[in-house]
């Protein structure tokens, strides 16, 4: 498989990358390349130029000072293995550890992953549930957007031409009970459905809950009905059943399926996996 001929440049800085992609709508940012290059080989994407940002030091590194800050060019493997991520948002480490295979995790980056916005990828679902913030740089300066608003549709985000994701900021959720679970597609291991829950507990009562769903939907999305059903409950069977039912309604307008795992099945499984996520979170 051969991509269409393209130019390649390695950006000298984030600003350089912004300039090179602002000037040329035929140019695309190259991060880890593990989504973009296969798409190019299949000729689903035919950019004339790739601007490689994968080696920019400004975009690397993970730090934890009140909030967790993950450089956009951090690889999935780095995130999965990071003690800071484990402490602040362990389910993000879990999700990054589920992406692709070893090679993908060693090259693929979180910034590239969310910019690509594959609806069945794992990290976006956790980022939405976690209330993460995406920091973006552009020629006019910087801006930020919540993960929830960032993912718009199939392979569609809030990101515009000439913008570069610099880092992903995640609140400190170390005091929360959280989990990400998924049913992997047997061929691709992408999520048939993936559910992330983040529970703020007060003894045996769930004070508040954040729930996000991916895989079954056109993009990672919050499930507010399920959150309401869990919040204030003791997470007993009745509450879990109510939440499982609610999550199926929450996603009913955004369902996505394929011939082997149709929408109706994925919808039903969102309920099953919501329960499993809560149980996993409670350990």
């Amino acid at each position, binding site marked *: 498989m*051969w991509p*269409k001929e393209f130019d390649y440049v390695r950006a000298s800085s984030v600003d350089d990358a912004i300039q090179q992609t602002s000037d040329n709508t035929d140019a695309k940012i190259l991060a880890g390349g593990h989504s973009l290059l296969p798409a190019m080989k299949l000729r689903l994407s035919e950019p004339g130029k790739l601007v490689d940002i994968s080696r920019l030091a400004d975009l690397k590194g993970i730090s934890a000072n009140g909030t967790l800050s993950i450089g956009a060019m951090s690889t999935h493997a780095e995130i999965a293995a990071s003690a800071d991520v484990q402490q602040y948002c362990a389910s993000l480490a879990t999700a990054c550890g589920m992406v692709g295979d070893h090679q993908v995790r060693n090259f693929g980056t979180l910034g590239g992953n969310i910019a690509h916005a594959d609806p069945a990828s794992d990290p976006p679902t956790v980022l939405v549930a976690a209330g993460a913030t995406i920091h973006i740089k552009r020629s006019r300066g910087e801006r930020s957007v919540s993960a929830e608003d960032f993912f718009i549709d199939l392979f569609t985000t809030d990101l515009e031409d000439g913008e570069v994701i610099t880092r992903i900021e995640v609140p400190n959720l170390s005091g929360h009970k959280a989990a990400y679970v998924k049913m992997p*597609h*047997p*061929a691709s291991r992408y999520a048939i459905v993936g559910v992330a829950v983040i529970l703020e507990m007060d003894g045996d009562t769930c004070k508040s809950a954040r729930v996000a769903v991916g895989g079954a939907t056109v993009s990672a999305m919050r499930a507010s009905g399920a959150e309401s059903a869990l919040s204030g409950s003791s997470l007993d069977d009745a509450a879990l059943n109510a939440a499982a039912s609610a999550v199926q309604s929450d996603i009913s307008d955004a369902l996505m399926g394929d011939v*082997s*795992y149709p929408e109706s*099945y994925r919808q039903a*499984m969102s309920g*099953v996996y919501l329960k499993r996520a809560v149980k996993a979170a409670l350990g």
Partner: protein
Amino acid sequence: MENFAVGKPTPLLDGQAKVSGQTRYVGDLKMRGMLHARLVVSVYAHANVKRIDTSEALAVSGVHSVITAADLPYVTPSSRNKLMLARDRVLFVGHPIAVVLAETEAAAADAAEKVHIDYEPLAAVVTMDEAMAEDAPIIWPTGVPSGAGDEGAHGADVGGDEKGTDKKTHSNIADVAQSSRGDVEKALAEADLILEHTYTTPMVHQSSIETQGVMAQPDSITGGVTMWVSTQTPFGIRNDVAGVIGVPESDVRVHAAPVGGAFGAKFGLYEPLVALLAKAVGRTVRLILTRNEELLTTNPAPPMRVDAKIGLKTDGTLTAIDIHVTLDSGIYPSGLGSFSAYMMTSFYPVSNYRTIATNVVTNKQSDGAYRAPTAPTVIFVLDTLLDEAAEKLGINPLELKMKNCAKPGDLLANDKPWPKMGMQETIEQVKAHPLWQKRNNGKAKGHGIGMAVGGWMGGIEPGAAVCKLNRDGILQVQTGSADLTGVHTVFGQLAAEAFGIAPDKVRVVYSDTDSAPYAGGVGGSKTLYTMGSAVVRAAQEARKQVLEIAAEEFEAAVDDLEIVDGKVQVKGVPEKTIELGAIASKAMTFGGKYPPIHANGRQAITAQSPGFAAQIAEVAVDEETGEVRVVNLVIIQDVGKAINPLIVEGQIQGGAVQGIGWALYEQMHYDESGQLLSGSWMDYTVPDAVQAAPLETILIEIPSDAGPFGAKGVGEPPVIPTAAAIANAIADATGARLTDLPMTAPRVLQALTDKSS
């Protein structure tokens, strides 16, 4: 005399090169002046091709030419490998219309996107029911082709002259075969239990890691070609290509390149087309399919539907089988339907049967052979029916199968007797196995255990081998069998044993069709059984030639000589020896008085030796999601004699994992317009390490009469009973009986829901 090699686990000769990346597949071969071919294929399931515009493609830098049917000689499209390029009509999504030839693969890929084709879409028949509908569009207006030279095949290049064809005289039903014995109606009327279900099994792709690969170099003097092909059958390719390009087969030379998986898919497909392309442009042409093309336009296993009804007595005696098989062949009928019906009424011999086998054609890629063609479907139907019958009659399923299974001498469907075989013995081994005994005692919650048994008649084909002794004392074995599934490794073991020499003193070399004696294709569980016998005979003859020379040297009788440690000596007199290399040297020297050691071994074994495998599957069913995980899979197989237990076990394990694919995952999906929806391995699930179960392989050895050292075919049986064993295990775990493969999570969940409602 098993002193040297037979029965010893021996690593694959080609293993190290393959694992370390040293093997040079067709895709690694480069020739000076070689052009890369890229197919341009139909995006419609059925359409008239109005115009092909190649101008933009020809303008791409590096493009040599764009070939269409107009550039090639006419070939009657009577079978899949004679389809060539579409003339005026395309018959399936993936039907090649043009080929770009370019100096680089990238240029070929760029240009292929720039060949513009104007289509006039036609109504297509995608499913077997659409094909058989009263007013169905007819795929082959002048008759469904049934083989070489068939007049009806001209339909593939229909122009305007066929428009008036009376559709009533033709249909999409290629053939209907019927067979019967006894009185099925009466037997069913008198049965104590009747079970009736409709089963479906899908199109499944062989999915080897290496895709189809062909390279052809034209010979401008003879008009022939030399080819390097990833193939199971170099001699078959020689014949196919010679026929299509119109030269004697002696002017076609075929090299079987190393093969990265075949499983029945590599019995000839694009070789004649690539040969024609090479001749058309006078340069070497290489075609390597992409994965997408491999899934879109090759020859996978056909979708089947089986309407099955069986009758039994309360004591478990099977009294009637009434079967209607419908097989969807894609555009060319394979004729596998009647073969499947034959198997369905042979494994459990019955006094009353009736079978109807209907082969239909549809606007999809043509079907082909996939490991034990149609047998996984046959056993899925038979063995799950018998399992259910046992449950309903309150009989242990194993006992019911034991009672009804074929034994040597019982009648096959064609009223001939079953030869020596071990169906019953494999079932007996199941009975003794701890996993089976756990079925009624000690299973984990949500787990189920099931068993099934299936077999393969075993193929035959004449073939010959050559043995030569070199001056270094190495015995060289030469055959025309492509090296799949370790056949060369095993040939070396057989030759060592028969000659009486250590296996490291044997070299097995593949020879192309010009230099090797004839060998049949490697497939059908026949290579070791038949070609192995030829190798043994050649090695025995070489031994005889060696001893005759030594006898003269020693002035002793041949019968008094022996070969020990690579030396010939008079029996019991180790003081006086001649090295094998020295004997070879005496026969390969100026002024020598002995002829060189050059031995032929030939065979035309006509007796088949069926091989059977029984399997026990333990599954865990997730009743919330419908997911099925195979927890344990035990394969008990009669292999006659395991010449190389390591390879035999590996081959059995590979087959069983493919069986897991049949059972739970694999299906080629087409939408209503005939578009392939599972055109990549992101969508089409080939089971891998995650889905494979812990496998236990148990070999039993009921020697065949004709195979070398009692060996019989091993390749087909292990894939056959897996889906049935897993289905029976699911039923044991949940009570749900599934009748459609694959048993995906949504289907299992649906079955559980249906059962509880």
